[in-house]
Each structure stands twice: as structure tokens, then as C-alpha cells.
């Protein structure tokens, strides 16, 4: 059942939701549950999940590993491995409730760990090598320990996901008991794979989490491109590819987030040809060098990190994405209804243009270990951190 290497690439339609508070106020789990459950028809009960940021303040400096195990033995193997390779500060089963409709769920545990470097002390430059260590560790567990799978590995964040409708998964993982300053959620409609708990979204790498509606037709190209940099696409889901591309572009190649988005959903050549020389050179270089990282095919993606939430559509907008805000609270979703059910009186509601990212970052120094990838800080008229050319759709504005 868990032979993930033989699985075919998954194909699915989906509903997605995301919430962020720019001042770091904690948002109750109820809100995200309500938003994703409003998009019930966008799933078929074969997968749902939640990502929450800021839920482990007492372990904020430890990597929180959410591990899923097929049986006790596989979790024991993970434990043995972790004790050998990391300092485990604390571990416990992830609290769950019994849900009638969820039969034989896997086992879930969380571990709060720090890397244990062997031999010489490795220069920890901006925590880069610690992050690299964790990426490799997670890949190793996923690849080598059969029956066990790390579903999230960031600091002060965690992912809860499984096979079921979103209300069932929320009930199972007791999402209502958590509070977070960023939430994302996913309701899955797979067409070709039997439900597998690891195949649900969000997909994560370190503190990056991704929920995704769409099918990435360039998967084969992206996968091969990522293999060049040592990423092993073990899960065979498109979403995994997005996580690795973000990690490669932003963490390893140091590209600003805005440009990383432009790599994944690049402007057309006809647009690039019209740019001024400096931009033309930049965008030509990005497309030439990162052709293998272009996400081609229909998608709407929300990705979050410790300090921001980003919504991005493919470059011809073949999947829906709507954004709204009220004050410092920003909500994104596949449908406007999913927003209005929790934010009945938004200040602004708009549909971002194809390929134009909506990047919402928290105010500086709001949360511990905060990350900011927005290299060019928003100008005055963009105080709310809405980026590049998004415009309100009069169709959606409430009167």
C-alpha cells in the first residue's frame, strides 16, 4: 500500500483557502475550517489538510517534525534514526479524535528536534546548513524508511492532513483547538489515485507549505530539472515539485520571492520583448536559465512560510483564485464564497491576474524566527503588500 515509488502522478482538482494576519494575531482554527468546508463540492473525500503557523511557540527554535507511520514499527525506526542524527527535545503523539468515517488511520507523532552534526562543527551561516541538514534528513526518511513519512518539518508550524473530507480531517486532528497566524487548507478531488494520507496537501519542505489546485503539465520536465540539484521527487505529486522549486530558487539561489514567482509563472515572450532593456535582459535570463522550473499547466497555489502567504496563478489563469482583506486580515481562496463565509464585509475583494503573485508578508519583527523574502519592500501605494498589478474586480465588489 505504501509503495510510493510505483504510484502514477496524481491528477486532481481542488479547493484551497488561506488566511494570514499581518500583525501576527492568532486566528482560531474554526475560521479556516469554515472557509474550506464552504468549498465542500471542490473535493471528493479523498484528501484534505491544514497547515498552521505559530502553533508551537514553546518549541519555536526546534524543527517540528510531523511524522506519519503505517505502524508502530515504522515510527520506531524513525525514532531510532532521529535519535542518532538529531537532538530530540520533545516528542508526543499528535492528538487526534476518533472519527466514525475515518477507518484505520495511520499513526501520527511529532518530534521537536535540532540537527546533530557529526565530527567538525559545520559553519552555520544564516542557519543555511541547518536547513540543508534538515532537508536531507527528511528526504532520507521519506526515501529509506518504509512505512514512515515526514509530513512537515518547519519551525513553529505543522501540517495535518489525511484522507477524508475537510470537516472529517479537522475533527480528526482537532484543528479547532489550534490557533495560528497563518493558515492554509486544502480540499482534494483526485481522479486517479486511491486516497493515500501522504498524498494529501499541504505539502511542505522546512517551513514552506503549499496547497495547490491544478495539474502541472510540466511535471516531467520539472522533476528532471530538480533532480539536477539533488531533489528526489518521491511522492510523484505536482505539489512536491513546487516546494522544491521554491526551496531551490529562494533558499539556495537567493532569488527574491517576486522573481521566483515570475520564474514559475513567467511573462510571455511577447511581453518580455516589449520591456525596457534592463527588464528584458533580466526576464530573458530567468526564462533561459530556469526553463526547467516553469510551472506549465493550470494551477492556483497558495504557499506560506514563517512570515508570509503568497497566492499565485498560472500564466493564463486556468484555475480560480480570489483574494480579500479587511484591515490586516487577508484571506485567499478558490471561491469568493469561501472568503465571505468568514469575512462577510471585506474592504476589498479581487481576482489576481494570471501569473501575478499576491504576496502578503507580516510586518517586520512580528513573530519569532520571522522570514521575509520580499526583497523590494512595498512602496506607499502598495502599503498593504499587494504586489504587481492586481486589481479589484468590480464584479465581485459588494454594495
Amino acid at each position, binding site marked *: 500500500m505504501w509503495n510510493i515509488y510505483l504510484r502514477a502522478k496524481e491528477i486532481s482538482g481542488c479547493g484551497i483557502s488561506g488566511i494570514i494576519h499581518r500583525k501576527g494575531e492568532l486566528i482560531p482554527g474554526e475560521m479556516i475550517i469554515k472557509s474550506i468546508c464552504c468549498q465542500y463540492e471542490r473535493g471528493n473525500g479523498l484528501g484534505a489538510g491544514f497547515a498552521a503557523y505559530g502553533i508551537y511557540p514553546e518549541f519555536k527554535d526546534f524543527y517540528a517534525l510531523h511524522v506519519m507511520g503505517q505502524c508502530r514499527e515504522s515510527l520506531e525506526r524513525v525514532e531510532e534514526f532521529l535519535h542518532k542524527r538529531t537532538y530530540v527535545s520533545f516528542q508526543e503523539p499528535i492528538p487526534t479524535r476518533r472519527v466514525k468515517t475515518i477507518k484505520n488511520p495511520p499513526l501520527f507523532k511529532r518530534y521537536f528536534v535540532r540537527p546533530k552534526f557529526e565530527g567538525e562543527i559545520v559553519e552555520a551561516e544564516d542557519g543555511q546548513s541547518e536547513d540543508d541538514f534538515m532537508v536531507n534528513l527528511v528526504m532520507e526518511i521519506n526515501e529509506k524508511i518504509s512505512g514512515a513519512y515526514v509530513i512537515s518539518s518547519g519551525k513553529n508550524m505543522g501540517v495535518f492532513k489525511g484522507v477524508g473530507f475537510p470537516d472529517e480531517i479537522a475533527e480528526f486532528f482537532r484543528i479547532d483547538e489550534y490557533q495560528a497566524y497563518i493558515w492554509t487548507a486544502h480540499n482534494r478531488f483526485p481522479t486517479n489515485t486511491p486516497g493515500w494520507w501522504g498524498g494529501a496537501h499541504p505539502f511542505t519542505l522546512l517551513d514552506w507549505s503549499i496547497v495547490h489546485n491544478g495539474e502541472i503539465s510540466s511535471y516531467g520536465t520539472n522533476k528532471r530539472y530538480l533532480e539536477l540539484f539533488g531533489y528526489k521527487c518521491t511522492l510523484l505529486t505536482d505539489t512536491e515539485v513546487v516546494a522544491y522549486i521554491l526551496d531551490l530558487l529562494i533558499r539556495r539561489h537567493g532569488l527574491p520571492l517576486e522573481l521566483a514567482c515570475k520564474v514559475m509563472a513567467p511573462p510571455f515572450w511577447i511581453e518580455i520583448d516589449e520591456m525596457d532593456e534592463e527588464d528584458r*535582459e533580466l526576464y530573458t535570463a530567468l526564462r533561459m536559465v530556469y526553463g526547467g522550473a*516553469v510551472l506549465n499547466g493550470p494551477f492556483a497555489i497558495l504557499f506560506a512560510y514563517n512570515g508570509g502567504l503568497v497566492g499565485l496563478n498560472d500564466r493564463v489563469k486556468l484555475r480560480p483564485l480570489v483574494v480579500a482583506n479587511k484591515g490586516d486580515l487577508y484571506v485567499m481562496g478558490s471561491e469568493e464564497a469561501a472568503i465571505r463565509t468568514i469575512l462577510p464585509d471585506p474592504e476589498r475583494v479581487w481576482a489576481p491576474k494570471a501569473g501575478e503573485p499576491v504576496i502578503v508578508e507580516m510586518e517586520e519583527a512580528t513573530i519569532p524566527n520571522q522570514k521575509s523574502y520580499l526583497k523590494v519592500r512595498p512602496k506607499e501605494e502598495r502599503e498593504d503588500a499587494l504586489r504587481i498589478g492586481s486589481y479589484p474586480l468590480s464584479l465581485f465588489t459588494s454594495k
Partner: protein
Amino acid sequence: MSTPIFANFHPDFYVERLWDKCIKCKRCIRECTYGVHIWDEKKKTLKEDHTKCVGCHRCSAMCPTNALIIRRHPSDFREHALWTPWFIKNIYKQADQGGVLLTSTGCALPYKNYFDHLVIDACQVTNPPIDPLREPMELRTFIGPKPEAVEVEEVNGRFRLKKKLPPVIRIEVPIMFAGMSYGAISLHVHQGLARAARDLGTLYNTGEGGLHASLYEYGANTIVQCASGRFGLHIDYLNAGVAIEIKIGQGAKPGIGGHLPGEKVTEEISKTRMIPVGSDALSPAPHHDIYSIEDLRGLIFALKEATEYKKLVFVKIAAVHNVAAIASGIVRAGADAVVIDGLKGGTGASPTMFRDNIGIPIELAISAVDKRLREEGIRHRTSIIASGGIRCSADVVKAIALGADAVYIGTAALIACGCTMCQRCHTGKCPWGIATNNPELMKRLPPEVAYEKIYNLVKGWAHEIKEMLGAMGINSIESLKGNRDKLRAVGLTREEMEILEVKHAGE
């Protein structure tokens, strides 16, 4: 008694004249360059020498009353599965003359053609196909080395490149024209190729016969070739194009150099190639300054030095058994693009044994080379150009999905000009005016016609590629590159599928 010529007893073709239609205008006599049609002055009628017919169909195409039919000669040998007429007749020819069998075009044996065992994917429901008539669809491709990462800096709230990228060549369609020398093909075809390349935004390749003075103006769309014979090679020539291709080998005859029979070396060609009129232009098998990979590096950088690092240097090899390792060495030697010419690659003259028996199919070679370069982490340092047996736009799509950046077409471009694949290019008598520089024959294919036909062909293919990309749900060619997900095998073995890295249909 004179020695009989056995080969003449058993002609390949039979010229059937429909006497009720023939008006004895003698057009066929003028059209045929092989002397098949003869006027019998005594009987005031036409006769045929079937033994000379090569099956080019020029006479039947030009006959004003459609009075000619060319068919395979109906008289058969007794059937034998092993000793087919092909082998019997080849033995007669060699017994008659004691020479090397010569032929033209690409491999004629029915080896498995892997393109024909690969099928392409399309979107249904979960993923919308994209319509190239309504949405942008991008084929732009860059040939040459690229860095692994882009470095940007922020200046006054704007991003810009920290370091400019090394020079690359931009082509608007991933189809280029393979090296076919002036001499092997007519000046008119060269002119047509050059103009078509310019208008299509792609490149044509001079082949190893130098560059005719009239073609220097197409420099921005020209690849000049440097082969072992070094014909017509001087500094202006090297500087004329945007890239220089070192030709180590070619798919039609791996292991030997180019051949231009003396019959084809006319006055103009002698000037361009810098050789005497009528002399055989036989390139040596190796480059005599390349006896190992480090020598190749020497030549690559000698050419780069000579052209002040403004030109890209390609290296073209025939696909042979160790193609992946060789390609890796070539990239490490500094080549900006590796051209791989497969078993089915064409030629204007080749020993038959070489054409039909040496080399490996291009599909397997592309996959193996792409894989090796990726494994070694040097794939971005080069582009892979695949050639040899690309017959249609679906072949182009499959080649790119297998890992090529772009393809070369040669034979297809000549067929666009009217070639009927009679495989007699080496005779210099091409009745269609393509593979000849006989001034009279050349007139049969004016440069404008060559241009128009070649341009139309690639334009049509480009549109088909866009349609296929759209059906696959992607709107730019880079998302097809190496995308094995888009291919499935039909009727291949496990091993073949492993090499091609494709799954079987239904998987």
C-alpha cells in the same frame, strides 16, 4: 567476347509508356539525366533503357500528357528470405566493377524506428488543453551554455542582472537546417535555406563546403562548419555566422569523412572550396589535429580565439555506441552545443555499408546523452541538437521530450524542395536540381522556389508543434524538454523503455 555486365541484366525499375497518350514530344529525353529515354531516329519512336532508371520520377512528373508510369521492375527473382534482390544486385555491381558500393540519403534498412513506438499525451478534463489560435504558444529556444543560477541585484527598487549571461543564440522555432554542403546540394538550395532560416528566425548550416560569396549577408542565421577537410575555411568564413560547428562525424557514415565526387566540383564550387575543378573532395576520416579529446578542446578554443569568443562552437558527432560518454567529454572540452546525428541521418554520398550498418538510432542516443549530462551536472553547460531521421513535427516533439533542445532537419528540407529519395545524390545528376551544381540542372529549382517550399514546411511544422503542445496543456517549449511524462511506449521492450526512460502505454 566482352565481359557481361550482370547488373544491367536486372533493372530495378520499369518505365511504362502509355502509347495512346504519348505525343513523342521528347520532353522525357530532356528531363532524364540518366539517359533512360532514347529517340530511335530510324523508327521515329521512343525507347527506354530500363537499366538506367533510378526511380526519380522526373520524367513521369514532367510528361505533358501523363504518358509515363515508373514502377518496380516486374520480373522477379525466385523468392529467398536471405538472398533478397538487394544483396544479389549489390553483388553483381561489385563483381562487375570491384569497387565500394556508393549511395546517398540515410539508412535504408528497416531497423526499429523508435519514434514510431512512442505516442504523445493530451489533456482531458482534469487539465484544459490550450488553444494556440487563441492563446500565446511559445517555441523560442536558446542554444548555448547557460549558468546554473541567475544572480540579481536590487537597484532603486528594481531588480536587474548582476552579471550578463554568456552569449547564446536565439531561435524562434526549435528546428534548424542540418549541414549540407554547397557542392552536395545546389547553390539555389543553399540560398533557399538561408532565406528561409532568416524569415523563420532559425539557423541553417553551411556544411563542410565553405560559404558562397552571395550568402554572407545571411550571417545572423548561419552556422559555418569546420570539418576534417577544412574546405573553404578562412577567417572571414569563421566570422561569417553566429556559430561554428566542428564536424567530427555524421550519422550516415560514422568513422569516415565527407565525400564530394569530382563530378560535382564545378568552377564555382572549386572557388568556394578552394580546390581544383573536377577533383574529388574527400575529407579525411579524422581531423588530423584531433587524435584525442584534449585536441578537440584545442580546436574549440583555437576557433574561439580566432573569432574573439563571439561565436558559439558546436561539435557534431555521429551517434555511436558510447555516445553518452563522448558527448560528456565534448561538453567538458568546451563545446557550446553537442549535435548528435543518428543512424538515420542523411548524406549526399556514402558507402552503402556505412549508411546502413553503422551508428545507433537517434532516439536512444538523445535519451542516453541527456541522462549522462544530467547525471554529471553539466546539462546546462550545453545544448543538445538532435538530427537524423526527423520526418515530421511529431518526431520533433518526441525528440525534445526525450531531451533535445532543438533538432536539425536535412532530408526533410530537401524533400520539401521536390526530392523523391531516389538515393543517387552522389552522381551529381539530380534531375530535380537539388543535389547538383550542373548549371542546366540547377535551373530546375530556382532559389525562390526552394525558399518558399522550405519556409512553408517549417511554418507548418511549427504550427503543428504548437497544437501538440497545447493539447498537452503546456504553452511553451521549455516545459516539453525532457518531459517523459508526455510520452508512452507502444511495443517496446523493458530495456528499450529503460533507456528511453518512458513508461509503456497503459502504465
